[in-house]
């Protein structure tokens, strides 16, 4: 509880501060149109960063709990690439309006969830579930590459490519209105799986002996991850690694029960994405650094560091 309260306090400080930061630093007293910029551009963007980060953080914590693996990432379910495929289809056909793109992305996420449930939903174990997710991710990735290679024109190619990199640039209230409710429902769904995830600490067999219904748990995870990750991709493209890094950073501060990790991970995910987005905004580059790239630049070395640490250091043989 104390950790969550600290993270809420950190967010309460970070969100207002983040509003001032950017290529142009805003002084509410002297910057022209400060109120307009804050209300229409920076506030929805900050809230969107927090919302998406919360969803990814919670999904990562739940995934790691379910797979009993600290290296698991929500991306393993194949939901993010499938949602991205939906958005790519919208861009490919030139129908990527403010609503069509996210709706197609959500349909992509829904399709992946349904496929996952169909393949591994009833009787499949964790291994089948993970493999099915990885194959769905591979298939969606291949179809996205196909779309890129067969892009009808250079503009579509550029639009798809840029969108896939993931960013919060120019996102506004409509995006928040779409993502926030779905993310909240998703986090609540994952939170409701907390007790079952605690039982999973003992392995699938012991969890079942403790009354966990494995099918119900699988459904809760598919729905919770689908809503959080799917809605995030729908409005911002693929933003990886938050779901991997955040539970790792937060876990040592908790009593390590998966159920105790979901809420702090959500809050810390929101904080991380908010800070990462501010860094993207203030870096003095010709064009704004894409958030997806920034997090991959942080996340991939962090993942390697974890692997090396788990292996007990670097060894040649």
């Amino acid at each position, binding site marked *: 509880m104390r950790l969550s309260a600290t993270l809420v306090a950190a967010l309460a400080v970070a969100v207002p501060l983040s509003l001032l930061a950017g290529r142009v630093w805003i002084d509410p007293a002297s910057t022209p149109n400060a109120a307009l910029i804050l209300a229409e551009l920076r506030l929805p963007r900050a809230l969107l960063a927090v919302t998406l980060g919360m969803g990814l953080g919670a999904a990562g914590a739940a995934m790691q709990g379910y797979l009993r693996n600290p290296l698991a990432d929500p991306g393993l379910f194949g939901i993010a690439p499938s949602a991205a495929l939906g958005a790519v289809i919208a861009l490919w056909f030139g129908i990527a309006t403010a609503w069509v793109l996210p709706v197609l992305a959500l349909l992509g996420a829904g399709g992946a969830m349904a496929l996952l449930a169909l393949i591994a939903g009833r009787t499949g174990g964790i291994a089948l579930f993970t493999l099915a997710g990885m194959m769905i991710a591979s298939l969606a990735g291949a179809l996205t590459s196909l779309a890129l290679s067969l892009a009808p024109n250079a503009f579509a190619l550029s639009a798809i490519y840029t969108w896939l990199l993931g960013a919060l640039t120019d996102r506004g209230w409509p995006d928040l209105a779409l993502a926030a409710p779905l993310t909240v429902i998703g986090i609540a769904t994952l939170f409701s799986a907390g007790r079952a995830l605690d039982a999973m600490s003992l392995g699938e067999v012991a969890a*079942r*002996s403790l009354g966990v*219904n494995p099918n119900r748990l699988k459904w809760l995870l598919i729905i919770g991850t689908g809503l959080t990750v799917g809605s995030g991709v729908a409005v911002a493209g693929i933003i990886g690694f938050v779901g991997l890094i955040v539970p790792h950073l937060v876990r040592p501060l908790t009593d390590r029960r998966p159920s105790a990790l979901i809420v702090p991970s959500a809050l810390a995910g929101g904080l991380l994405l908010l800070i990462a987005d501010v860094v993207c905004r203030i870096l003095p580059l010709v064009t704004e650094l894409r958030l997806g790239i920034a997090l991959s630049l942080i996340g991939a070395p962090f993942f390697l560091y974890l692997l090396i640490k788990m292996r007990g250091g670097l060894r040649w043989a």
Partner: protein
Amino acid sequence: MGLSARNITVHLGAAQALCDISMSLNPGEVTAICGPNGAGKSTLLSVLAGLIAPDAGEVRLDGLILNTMAHEARAKLIGFLPQNGEIAWDVSVHNLTALGRLPHRDRDETAIAKALAKVEMSNFAQRPISTLSGGEKARALLARVLAGEPRWLLTDEPLAALDLAHRDSVIGQLRDEAAAGTGVAIVVHDLAQAMNHADKVVVLDQGKIAAQGTPQTALTPQIIANVWGVKARWIGEAGAQALITRS
């Protein structure tokens, strides 16, 4: 009223793991399930725990068909300690034990403290499990099952990681649970443990029941020779017998 299997047949993939098994556990009794590797002991325990649905036959708990019971209702009554207990996260012994309360949807601190005291782990309550020895971890895992206060206690090789003293202590604990009215099943490889501490023994061989009854009738040298292929004889007095084998 008991936990009974009637004409159970189970296939694991294409292989038949159990064939026409009928047996029952009774409250207040310790039943040892013995047999060579691959005889189906763990499968039988999982069937009795309601974790594997039999392909034929049925398991009844107090007259109800086990596999039709709600998951949590079943879990409140049957405590199951799997072989090779593994814990994914480095939780404290207390939090590990508290998992036993999950079917009850509470964190009854009295039940948790009682379970820890029973396995002599009260002083370890706040220790992370990564700092425990194999024997301490095995006792903490047993405390997790005891915290659920089940009426049926099914344990798969709970003595495997224990030294002599703790083995005696855990066996004593399981006997105490039985004396308090719990029906206990224990999968054991050590036939002397079964002979000395069980009220009833079920001997499995290739998925079938080779013998069942009191330890004296189910673990005769003849049955041991037939099932394990080992010539053996019992020495010592009742309750403290040892098995001497000759190849």
